[in-house]
């Protein structure tokens, strides 16, 4: 067998080991992974706790959004109802959509990832547990405050996609829209943090032997999901920032009278918004693939084709954003391309559906609650998929655009493709984290109420839409033939509500959180999450030899629990996990992991405070909160990148692994690369915006001159990059004690800041005004982005200097220096490209 890293795969044949284990081994492991108690739980970072909090919070937002939906359905049950005034109705449907998409669907998938992945991969935890905690608290605090705005009449009211000019200051003068723009922008940052955690976790913390070909499909799905978040979410972050800047500073990005364009918002929003649908669907598909196999008691049919389908869906989903814009007058040829891609995306979805059907057909499925939800989801999703192909046909889309037909379609897709699989998953995996499983008897009632309610609500809604009822209207006139279908839809909505209420009752009655002594593998799954676990995940980390190890290795659970595989205790007395290679999952080194801490919580609170206080225009407290967030985050980071006395330790079977690693294979390096992908996507989207408005409104563009400034700016950035390389080079040399390598990096950070200042000064000298035209506004947006990078670069080099002063930068290579260098190089590159693009794209071609 070949090796990816030089590790001899034959070494893994030593497991399971024989002979007795040391008496205190398990006690030491438990001590290292002990979770805080009482109020201290707020500082917990173990994935069991954070994952459960996360799932609970996402489910809470689902309930709240569901209640809003019920009130809306009451309003629409009969014509001219007076339950909700028009303005409140606007806030309700905006909140319903926003909560479901941003605060339930995506976070629920991330939550399930945080909860399930370490166990499925047999890692001790995800690689950045404090980042998980930060992501959760930021999401929970931000989401709660966002929802509460409803009670003050301040909730956003422009629809979940917030199109300008409706959401500009002319038509939305209050702060309602700002709540959405700042709140959602902030929550998306939390989603990106979670995605980086999941990506690195899946690639680097799999159990030895779990090659790409043996990965659980949920892990594949989460890998694709997280990758899509990194590519898609920057678009909406940029869009929300631009619209907020337009509202706050009068910079006309979307104002057609000053060279901006409202279509720019739609492009940016839907470049995020349509992949978002698949970002929600793919993890649910991963859950379904795993459950179908376990419930049918047979391996999944077409594993490799399903992997291909996940990857293909991700790629194609980025080519369908404009099918939401068929009625906006785009060029005919463009419309043709988007229509073709929109139809093509049904192919990979179809592959998965057929794989599930085939697995159920060849296996021996039992009629239990998860099976019912899986099949119900399948049926519902297929109906939604078919109407999706219908609306991919441009002439048909023109007829039903913005009608209740679309509402029906999207609910079929999202409820069938995500909500039912999540409910199936809640039934299926609850025994993994609860002393008792949920009730099968009640579960079947829950399913039938929800399934029947779903069809009763949304099937007639297709007709309502075909009869011409538009979306987002708070009432309708009698005598238009809309009464019967609307009344039936309302009745169906209450059936769904009854099903969900029954589920909550079941949850209250049976769910009892536990890490040990759980109900266990009730449905007979074959993957690693069903191994016996504690707060440390599995007692020892198994060697994986197939896709369903529990089915193929009958003694695996016993051997793992007796510590007969890798890392049967704690090798250093600290929290640790094995980092493996991304393709073949060969052990590379031992990661020392940080324990509980209040700093991620404080960091999240202050970050949330910054955004929320900004929303209510409390600028001074917002700045204070933002400033406090910085040291909180730095303090949390201070405990990471630590070395221990032993450079190598025995992880079992005589295999010795390093306790510190640097360079391009480390988990920290991977995380920084992914962060830079996000930064690069924000930048690319800004370039798109720049070229888009230049192409649409060239008459508003001027040649400001000042091209000569590009040369010194680019030169300074090149100098900064050179200093970074010099610093890294000097760190590798033993004799560089007098002139610390951190000094070069410090100088590099200062040079980046100087380059930005020169660039900015150059523009100020030309007399351009960002309020006058979209060109000026976009130049300022570029400069603001680069200014942010320069500020972060300065903070990073100061952090590096502080660590150097405490002798925490290790020779010959340091992870902190590696990641700071990477960031500085990127900042320099983006700065140079910014200087060139803003000056060289002609003003009057």
């Amino acid at each position, binding site marked *: 067998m070949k090796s990816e890293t030089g590790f001899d795969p034959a070494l893994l044949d030593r497991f399971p080991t024989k002979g007795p284990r040391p008496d205190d081994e398990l006690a030491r492991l438990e001590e290292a992974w002990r979770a805080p108690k009482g109020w201290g739980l707020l500082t917990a970072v173990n994935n069991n706790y954070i994952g459960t909090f996360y799932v609970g919070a996402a489910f809470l937002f689902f309930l709240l959004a569901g209640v809003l939906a019920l009130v809306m359905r009451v309003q629409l049950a009969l014509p001219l109802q007076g339950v909700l005034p028009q303005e409140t109705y606007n806030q309700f449907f905006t909140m319903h959509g926003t909560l479901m998409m941003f605060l339930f669907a995506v976070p629920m998938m991330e939550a399930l990832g945080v909860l399930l992945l370490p166990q499925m991969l047999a890692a001790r935890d995800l690689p950045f547990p404090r980042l998980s905690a930060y992501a959760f608290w930021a999401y929970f605090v931000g989401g709660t405050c966002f929802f509460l705005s409803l009670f003050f009449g301040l909730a956003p009211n422009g629809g979940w996609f917030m199109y300008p000019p409706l959401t500009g200051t002319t038509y939305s003068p209050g702060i309602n829209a700002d709540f959405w723009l700042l709140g959602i922008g902030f929550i998306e940052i939390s989603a990106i943090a979670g995605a980086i955690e999941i990506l690195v976790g899946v690639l680097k913390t799999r159990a030895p032997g779990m090659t790409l*070909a043996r990965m659980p499909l949920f892990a594949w799905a989460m890998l694709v999901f997280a990758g899509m978040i990194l590519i898609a979410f920057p678009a909406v972050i940029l869009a929300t920032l631009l619209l907020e800047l337009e509202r706050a500073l009068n910079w006309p990005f979307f104002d057609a009278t000053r060279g901006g364009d409202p279509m720019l918002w739609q492009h940016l929003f839907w470049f995020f918004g349509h992949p978002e649908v698949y970002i929600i669907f793919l993890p649910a598909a991963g859950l379904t693939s795993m459950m179908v196999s376990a419930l049918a008691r047979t391996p999944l049919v077409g594993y490799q084709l399903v992997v291909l389908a996940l*990857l293909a869906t991700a790629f194609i989903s980025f080519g369908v954003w404009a099918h939401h814009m068929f009625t906006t007058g785009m060029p*005919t040829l463009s419309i043709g391309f988007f229509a073709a891609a929109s139809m093509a995306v049904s192919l990979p979805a179809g592959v998965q559906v057929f794989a599930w059907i085939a697995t159920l057909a060849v296996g021996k499925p039992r009629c239990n609650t998860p099976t019912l939800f899986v099949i119900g989801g399948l049926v519902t999703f297929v109906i939604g998929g078919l109407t999706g192909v219908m609306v991919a046909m441009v002439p048909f889309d023109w007829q039903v655009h913005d009608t209740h037909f679309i509402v029906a379609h999207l609910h079929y897709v999202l409820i069938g493709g995500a909500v039912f699989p999540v409910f199936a998953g809640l039934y299926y995996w609850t025994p993994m984290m609860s002393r008792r499983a949920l009730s099968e008897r009640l579960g079947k009632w829950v399913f039938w109420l929800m399934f029947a309610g779903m069809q009763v609500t949304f099937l007639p809604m297709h007709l309502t839409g075909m009869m011409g009822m538009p979306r987002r209207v708070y009432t309708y006139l009698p005598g238009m033939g809309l009464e019967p279908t609307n009344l039936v839809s309302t009745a169906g909505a209450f059936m769904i509500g009854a099903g969900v209420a029954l589920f909550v009752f079941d949850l209250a009655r049976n769910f009892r959180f536990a890490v040990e002594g759980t109900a266990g593998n009730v449905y007979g799954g074959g993957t690693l999450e069903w191994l016996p676990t504690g707060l440390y995940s599995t007692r020892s980390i198994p060697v994986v030899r197939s896709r369903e190890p529990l089915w193929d290795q009958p003694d695996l659970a016993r051997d793992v629990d007796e510590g007969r595989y890798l890392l049967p205790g704690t090798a250093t007395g600290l929290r640790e996990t094995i980092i493996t290679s991304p393709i073949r999952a060969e052990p590379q080194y031992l990661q020392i992991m940080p324990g509980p801490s209040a700093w991620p919580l404080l960091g999240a609170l202050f970050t949330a405070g910054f955004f929320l206080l900004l929303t209510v225009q409390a600028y001074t407290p917002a700045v204070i909160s933002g400033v406090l967030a910085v040291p909180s985050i730095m303090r949390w980071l201070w405990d990471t990148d630590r070395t221990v006395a032993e450079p190598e330790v025995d992880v079992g079977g005589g295999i010795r692994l390093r306790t510190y690693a640097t360079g391009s294979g480390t988990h920290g390096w991977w995380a920084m690369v992914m962060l830079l992908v996000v930064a690069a996507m924000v930048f690319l989207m800004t370039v798109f915006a720049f070229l888009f408005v230049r192409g649409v409104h060239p008459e508003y563009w001027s040649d400001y001159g000042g091209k000569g400034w590009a040369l010194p700016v680019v030169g300074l950035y090149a100098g900064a990059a050179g200093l970074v390389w010099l610093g890294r080079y000097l760190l590798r040399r033993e004799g560089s004690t007098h002139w610390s390598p951190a000094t070069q990096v410090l100088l590099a950070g200062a040079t980046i800041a100087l380059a930005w200042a020169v660039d900015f000064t150059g523009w100020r000298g030309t007399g351009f005004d960002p309020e006058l035209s979209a060109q000026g506004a976009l130049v300022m947006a570029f400069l603001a982005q680069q200014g942010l990078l320069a500020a972060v670069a300065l903070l990073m080099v100061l952090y590096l200097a502080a660590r150097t002063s405490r002798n925490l930068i290790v020779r010959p290579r340091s992870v902190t220096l590696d990641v700071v260098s990477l960031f500085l190089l990127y900042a320099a590159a983006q700065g140079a490209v910014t200087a060139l693009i803003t000056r060289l794209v002609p003003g009057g071609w």
Partner: protein
Amino acid sequence: MRAWAIVLGGLAVWAAHFFVLYGIASAMPGRVGARWLVLIVTLAAIAADGLILWRTIGAGRRADALEAWIARLGGLGAALSLVAVVWQAAPAVAM
């Protein structure tokens, strides 16, 4: 990185083809030249997919189990991409 390039190569060709087509359609709306450009880009994408397909079929025969699995996945991706590229270009050719 080589393994990821094999797995994602075909799909990347499809994505590149799509975005170039979108760029052409946006920059040259309504012009006949746009259709010829689309045709040229499509032929290039088909060639790239064909190359990946040919390479992965060859690699699949020689490699160990995991490499063969990766090559097969890459080959399937390239085959899917081939279909998607032709389908994608159809509006420009047919309209």
